[in-house]
């Protein structure tokens, strides 16, 4: 999953869970059914899991552009130079 996809996935997960929680409480309170609240929330959790956990292709539309290998060779990595000991005078 690319960076853009990760950001979208995190927001989507939070929004889906919060909305299903709110809907669950409202419907449960209105119908006086605790069971309704729990079922709606469980459905919301399953939905959020299906949407955000697997690595769907539409989260990969902005892939990271890695540096081309030929370009990398033109700019060699800095080498570690052995330290010269300065002799005491």
């Amino acid at each position, binding site marked *: 999953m690319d960076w853009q996809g990760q950001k979208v996935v995190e927001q989507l*997960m939070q929004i889906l869970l919060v909305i299903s*929680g709110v809907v669950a409480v409202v419907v449960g309170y209105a119908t*006086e059914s605790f069971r309704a609240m729990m079922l709606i929330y469980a459905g919301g959790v399953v939905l959020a899991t299906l949407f955000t*956990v*697997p*690595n769907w292709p539409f989260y990969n539309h902005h892939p990271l552009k890695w540096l081309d290998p030929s370009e990398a060779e033109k700019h060699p990595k800095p080498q570690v130079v052995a330290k010269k000991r300065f002799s005491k005078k």
Partner: protein
Amino acid sequence: MHSFGYRANAILTFSVTALAFICAIASLSDNFSNQNPSAEIQILNINRFKKQSYENDEVSLTLDITADLESLFTWNTKQVFAFVAAEYETPKNSLNQVSLWDAIIPDKEHAKFRIQTSNKYRFIDQGHNLRGKEFNLTLHWHVMPKTGKMFADKIVMPGYSLPDAYK
């Protein structure tokens, strides 16, 4: 959020936290319910009233209990525990509470009832103070929720008394 395990963990912890919030809201909603339970108790008969061979006083009663506890049930109620206690004062204790009968009411359909029964639990005093004693019969209830805070309350019915002599 770069790996499957990371996302699975994130959704697990967030959903459990949100579940805790939902249950807290459900419990808070209980504060807004209007409750008006009612009850009435009559003593039909005093069966036995004696001293337990050189020990404490004991009474056996037959009670007729009528109660309507339907309004205590909300969407977040699992069951209501109700009990009847005899309350009186003695020189030794400023308050004696003796539980005579209790019941678990599992749902609203069973919450309006009338039962005639002898006391489920023995009414034994600490001493010999019960002759001619005036006492209250109090119906206590505990509303046990599915999630959250438990509420307890009572109705005090004064004016009952025991005979002046052993039977």
